[in-house]
């Protein structure tokens, strides 16, 4: 249970945005998608492709190394990276440092928004009726396919940069 990871499968995602609403509702009490820690990108120029983006809980998190007030720390128990909103000074260093653009910002309350895996019970997983977001044990992922995907991802990104 403790070493579960949040797995995204864009094939199943239809871009309904229920995960965003659920996330905002759970963390801030209001269904304001601007405060969601997960963001669905796609549609429009991208056809039917929708991908929910959220924190990947990096092993060596760039957001943690740039934080000026040590508000971001690693929690090995749940294998996650946590942001303490009481310590966050709102400098947005982490937003710029995250290579995936996965960190949001609550401009009304003045601190960064980052997925905390809901203490091991992610609300977005419950909200997703299409099984596009699952919270599963790492060893159940197909590693060979994952590795191929990662390589392909790298090659495609390299053409842009």
């Amino acid at each position, binding site marked *: 249970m403790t070493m579960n990871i949040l797995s995204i499968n*864009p*094939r199943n995602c*239809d871009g309904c945005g229920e995960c965003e609403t659920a996330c905002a509702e759970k963390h801030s009490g209001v269904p304001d998608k601007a405060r969601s820690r997960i*963001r669905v*990108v*796609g549609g429009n120029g*991208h*056809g*039917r*492709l929708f*991908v929910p*983006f959220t924190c990947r809980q990096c092993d060596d998190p*760039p957001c943690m*190394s*740039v934080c000026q007030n040590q508000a971001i720390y690693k929690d090995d128990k749940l294998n996650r990276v946590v942001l303490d909103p009481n310590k966050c000074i709102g400098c*947005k*260093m982490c*937003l*710029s*440092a*995250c*290579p*995936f*653009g*996965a*960190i*949001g910002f609550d401009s009304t309350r003045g601190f960064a928004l980052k997925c905390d895996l809901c203490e091991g019970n992610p609300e977005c997983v419950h909200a997703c009726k299409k099984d596009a977001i699952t919270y599963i044990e790492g060893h159940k992922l197909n590693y060979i396919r994952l590795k191929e*995907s990662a390589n*392909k*991802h790298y090659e*495609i*990104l390299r053409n*842009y*940069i």
Partner: protein
Amino acid sequence: MSFFSVNNNCNGCLACVQNCPANALSHRDEESRRTLLHNMSLCARCGNCWRICPQKAVQFDGILNGAWDEVVTMELIHCTVCGEPLYTDGFKTALTGKLDYSLETLCPLHKKTFSLDAWRHLAFDDRTDEGSER
């Protein structure tokens, strides 16, 4: 800095210095020169000097109009796709000093959009009819 200034009409009568209730005005006489001094941290912004000046030399517009002072100006770096302002060059220097990879000058949304293009190939690469299920 436009809070307090004195124009060329000043003839150094020191009426303002005598009448400043906060002792924020003073003067210095050195050889052939008289210099009027003002201390912003003592100033109560009451405008007494401005009212009393017989030469209309005290400029108090900054306080009366509540103008903004330009404090510091620096280079701004924008998202290379949408042009949204991201951060300043100093901010970027601070960031890159703490990171061991090169920073892309993209806003969070366009970082995701670039990943999306990669995802397109991953999600549909083994399908002949791309995304036609729905």
